[in-house]
């Protein structure tokens, strides 16, 4: 719980330090990309801190490449 609060505080600091100047300078596109990425990062971190099971991208990789991997393992054994 405290971890999530800490994350939010850090994110707010990041946002004010980085995004507000972008907005002021009129870099709308940068601001949007930054905000979306930050939102994504924040939700991931909070999910992590609340011990929600996040699927590992490695699992997807392993799933996609499974046939190839198996083939390699068997031929080289």
């Amino acid at each position: 719980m405290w971890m999530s609060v800490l994350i939010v505080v850090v994110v707010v600091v990041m946002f004010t330090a980085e995004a507000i100047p972008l907005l002021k300078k009129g870099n709308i596109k940068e601001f949007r990309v930054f905000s979306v990425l930050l939102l994504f990062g924040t939700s991931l971190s909070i999910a992590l801190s609340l011990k929600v099971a996040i699927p590992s991208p490695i699992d997807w990789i392993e799933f996609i490449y499974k046939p190839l991997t198996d083939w390699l393992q068997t031929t080289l054994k």
Partner: protein
Amino acid sequence: METIKISVRQFTILVILFSVGSSMLIIPGIIAKEAKQDAWIAAILGVGVALLLVKLYNVVGSIEPNMTLIEIIEKVLGKWVGKIVTIAFLFFTLVTSGEFLYFVGNFMSTEIMPETPILAFNILFAIVVIIGVRYGLETFARSAEIIFPWFIVLFVLFIILISPNVEIQNIQPVLEIKTKPMLHSVLLFISVFSLSPIVLLMIFPIAVNDAQQAQKAFFKGTFIAGIILVIIITLTIVVLGTEATAHLMYPSYALAKRIEIGNFLQRIEVIMASMWIITIFFKLIIYFYASVVGFAQLVNIKDYRPLTLPLGMIIVVLSIIVHPNIVESIQYNNGSWIPFGATFGLLLPLVLLIVAKVRKRT
């Protein structure tokens, strides 16, 4: 993009540190398992293949010498296909960055400071990487130039200190290995050592001030890095023996534990640890730089710096979730990583090359 340029020497040093990178600690164990006492031969063969791959990267880099890999992808494959490939490539660099961060934290918390949580190491390391990337390529290339002599000094010191423990019969009999395990170990070596330099195409040849010399520097750097790895692999086998090397997670670190000179110089495995941290720092920073700059080019924004913080946050999260434990990470590295890495390290440049050739003809 900014018109920053690094010197050829800086590029060579970056290639060396990048290629030695994560490999230094884990590679001896991985290939000793397959090739036994002939691991060093596999490594030498692997370096040979790596040089061929560097040739490929050089050719791909010279398709458009004034573009980064992302721009080349978009130009050669067209806008839509290019974007999809770019996203896949960024996925590759980001996940791999996360994995390196996982290695750092895992190594520190299992081998050196068991009480500290892995997350703490990862966050600290990620912060320094973000600082480095924000300062820009020029700055971290210069830092590499300053740190590299220290790396070499530590490496030579390490070799000298470990030399009393060498038992040459450990690598005998030579060349007992069958073809298949040999092929497998060479493949493992390449997968760790020489599929990653595709990421270097984000800075090469666009950001190097002399493209012609840079091609040579790419070879030179890979070759020197290869020699360093061959030396480390040979040392682990002749000092620890095949069995121990194959069963340890970090054989070269265990190797350093054997150092004992007199009664006062002992347990200086920290030398090894610091060498490894230095190299993995540069490997990670280049991967992260590639991801950030690539992302900026994907969404078409000029300054990549605003992306460093959120993407840094994401790789920290990735570093925690990539592998549930070290066993799975070994499994992944010996299994899916090979085709996954090859997709980007071998298939992507080949496709780019062929499509570019075909397009040029028509």
